[in-house]
């Protein structure tokens, strides 16, 4: 069945094509057809995962040549190894849940069918990205997911914020993609092929200079920075929350933003060859995670809190992967790779669940502002329960899946004290802001009675996916339990499988930290024994800084956008004045020159033509009198010319050719004749007149 893995991306593509061209007039058919296709993909993914497990993660690769140049081939192919199989299952599971959930969430939307078409297109791109076996293909799908992300963020394009957000997302990720493209060029130049295996072999063989490998790794990482919303390109993800919530769940929490992490995991062989690049990756990861976690502490928009949480968790994964590369480059064992990929998997489930739960809440109260919620628990039991499970999971509470993956990450940082402390601090903040969100949304007194009265549990079609994901949020991480000797770490690994010994100390510390984070949130937002306002007042400047997201948008506005706009305005002025001036000036000169030519045409050329005609006409007028009609006159004519030519002959015989002279003689004869003929015809006329008078 693994050889049919190429069907996994193609089925959603089929759904997209059919929905767009044939089915979109029928909302029911188009939505259920899309769901059927992703479910079939999901089934194939399950089988593929089982088969890959049976192969112990041995890669399966199939490809054919797409474009062939003399010494360079572009290939299209699929690579199914452990990482791919896991990612396929994650993406199809979340995709199926989200699509089913969307039937309820998007109900009554004007562009219902189009939404499903876009989701299918996204799933095609994402699954294609996962099964690709070379950097060329991954880049194509990379751009495709960027496009679908753009389309879906701007799905409600009549809202200006949404339209702005989709442009922001597209352009910001494009900056990272440019780096990725440069990385691809370097791979193309220094390796000559894009196939993963060939590239990694070439890097591992040491044939490429170390500096080049570092640059290559950092450029490839640029793509991940853009797509996974890492510092300093993280600004687009919170704005992307303007899209419909299922989109936020599928694309901006569970799958597409994970593509950057996937890319780093996939190209880990490049990173382990360069400790410097890996260090950059790890630092970017932890900085991002810290920034996002602190911002999430004070936000008030339910989806933005989750968005910053996503950025923070992605930073975790990136940091873990970077640490793996760094440690491996220095010859140490590291749990980072397993930790990063495991957290990628578990995070997809509980963050997807959190977003779908948030969507359910928004569906009920029609606002994103948590200050207007509160006390929703009795009215929305399933949503509350599943949301709590996901929150516990992301906070890292034993024994939910988030605990195991987060524990791996903490274990990976164990040898780097600074990172360890920061990681634990972020874990604390994560627990705190998640439960701040929970308490404010679901517990306490309703703060907006009108919205509270309107609130209701979502329809079954929305709660079922919540329950499925809740199940996975609890159990998906169990594959990574450290006591399990044939668990995740012996399936998804890089290089040699490495089994980290479970560390009681770290587990206890992380649990204590998570629980204390939850406890602080409980005290502040449930028991109200610590007033959040007072804390905010105490740290007013810090609070303002965090509330305004470190002023990243403003800084970018001043540093990047304003200069660009100023430059654009200058260029516009230049365009309007100089280039348009040149163009218009040319036009003016052309018109002027045309006028000159017109004058020349009218007076000189036409003059010459008409003048020659006039000369001929006048000459003819003169000569026509030769034709008197009198036969005797013609005889005279012939005789005269015979004499004339005789004279000319004599002239030539005596003086040689003398053209002017002969011409003068000839013309003189002609003139003489013509005058004579005039005289004759005049005489004739008068005689005829006389005759007629006589007759009269």
């Amino acid at each position, binding site marked *: 069945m693994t050889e049919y893995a190429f069907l996994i991306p193609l089925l959603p593509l089929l759904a997209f094509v059919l929905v767009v061209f044939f089915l979109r007039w029928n909302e029911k058919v188009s939505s259920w057809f899309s769901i059927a296709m992703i479910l079939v993909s999901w089934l194939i993914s399950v089988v593929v995962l089982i088969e890959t497990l049976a192969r112990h993660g041995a890669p399966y690769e199939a490809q054919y040549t797409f474009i062939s140049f003399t010494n360079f081939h572009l290939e299209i192919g699929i690579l199914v190894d452990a990482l791919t199989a896991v990612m396929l299952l994650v993406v199809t599971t979340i995709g199926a849940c989200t699509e089913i959930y969307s039937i309820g969430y998007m109900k009554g939307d004007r562009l219902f069918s189009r939404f499903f078409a876009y989701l299918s297109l996204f799933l095609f791109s994402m699954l294609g990205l996962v099964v690709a076996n070379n950097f060329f293909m991954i880049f194509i799908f990379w751009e495709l997911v960027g496009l679908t992300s753009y389309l879906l963020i701007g799905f409600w394009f009549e809202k200006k914020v949404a339209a702005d957000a989709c442009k922001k997302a597209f352009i910001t990720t494009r900056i990272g993609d440019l780096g990725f493209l440069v990385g691809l060029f370097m791979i193309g130049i220094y390796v000559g092929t894009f196939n993963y295996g060939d590239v990694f072999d070439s890097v591992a063989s040491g044939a490429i200079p170390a500096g080049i490998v570092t640059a290559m790794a950092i450029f490839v990482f640029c793509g991940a920075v853009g797509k996974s919303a890492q510092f300093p390109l993280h600004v687009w993800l919170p704005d992307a929350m303007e899209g419909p919530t299922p989109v936020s769940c599928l694309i901006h929490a569970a799958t597409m933003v994970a593509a950057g992490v996937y890319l780093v995991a996939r190209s880990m062989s490049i990173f382990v060859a360069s400790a410097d690049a890996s260090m950059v990756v790890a630092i970017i990861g932890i900085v991002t995670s810290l920034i996002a976690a602190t911002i999430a502490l004070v936000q008030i928009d339910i989806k933005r809190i989750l968005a910053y949480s996503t950025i923070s968790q992605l930073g975790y994964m990136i940091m873990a992967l970077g640490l793996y590369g760094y440690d491996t480059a220095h010859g140490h064992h590291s749990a980072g790779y397993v930790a990063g990929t495991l957290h990628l998997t578990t995070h997809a489930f509980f963050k997807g669940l959190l977003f779908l739960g948030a969507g359910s809440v928004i569906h009920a109260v029609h606002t994103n502002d948590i200050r207007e919620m509160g006390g929703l628990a009795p009215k929305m039991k399933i949503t509350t329960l599943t949301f709590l499970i996901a929150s516990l999971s992301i906070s890292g509470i034993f024994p939910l899946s988030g605990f195991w993956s987060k524990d791996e990450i903490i274990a990976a940082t164990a040898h780097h004290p600074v990172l360890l402390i920061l990681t634990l601090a972020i874990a604390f903040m994560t627990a705190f802001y998640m439960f701040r969100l929970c308490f404010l949304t679901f517990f306490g007194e309703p703060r907006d009675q009108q919205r509270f009265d309107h609130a209701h549990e979502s329809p079954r079609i929305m709660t079922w996916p919540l329950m499925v994901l809740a199940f996975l949020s609890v159990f998906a991480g169990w594959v990574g339990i450290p006591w399990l000797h044939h668990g995740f770490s012996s399936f998804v690994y890089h290089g040699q499988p490495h089994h980290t010994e479970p560390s009681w100390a770290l587990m206890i510390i992380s649990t204590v930290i998570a629980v204390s984070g939850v406890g602080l949130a409980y005290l502040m937002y449930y028991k109200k024994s610590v007033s959040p306002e007072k804390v905010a007042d105490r740290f007013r400047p810090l609070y303002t800084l965090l509330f305004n997201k470190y002023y990243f948008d403003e800084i970018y506005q001043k540093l990047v956008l304003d200069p660009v706009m100023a430059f654009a305005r200058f260029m516009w002025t230049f365009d309007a004045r100089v280039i348009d001036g040149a163009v218009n000036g040319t036009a003016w000169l052309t018109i002027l020159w045309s006028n000159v030519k017109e004058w020349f045409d009218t007076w000189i050329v036409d003059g010459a033509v008409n003048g020659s005609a006039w000369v001929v006409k006048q000459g003819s007028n003169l000569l*026509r009198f030769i034709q008197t*009609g009198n*036969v*005797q006159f013609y005889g*005279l004519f012939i005789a005269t010319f015979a004499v004339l030519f005789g004279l000319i002959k004599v002239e030539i015989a005596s003086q040689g050719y003398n053209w002017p002279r002969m011409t003068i003689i000839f013309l003189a004869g002609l003139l003489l004749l013509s005058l004579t003929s005039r005289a004759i015809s005049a005489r004739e006329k008068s005689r005829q007149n006389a005759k007629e008078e006589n007759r009269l």
Partner: protein
Amino acid sequence: MFYYLGLAAVLFSVGLFGVLTRRNAIGILMSLELMFNAVNINFVAFNKYIVTDDLLGQIFAIFIIVVAAAEATVGLAIVLVLYRNWRGVDMDHVNIMKW
């Protein structure tokens, strides 16, 4: 030879003058005969004094006399037609060949 050629030239000129000035078509035909005969005299004279070996010029002169007779016949036929059309043979009336 000068006398022969002189006679021919005078005869030709008289004929030409007649052709160009006579009103009567018959007169014109007669003047034409004069011009033919001037040419004949030239031929015979040249044959006598310049190309003496055979009788080419004389034979040619006889040919011309024959052809002139035929031509006179055609000419007279034309004159007859003219007479029928215009009730006269005045060449001043034959002036339709013009612009």
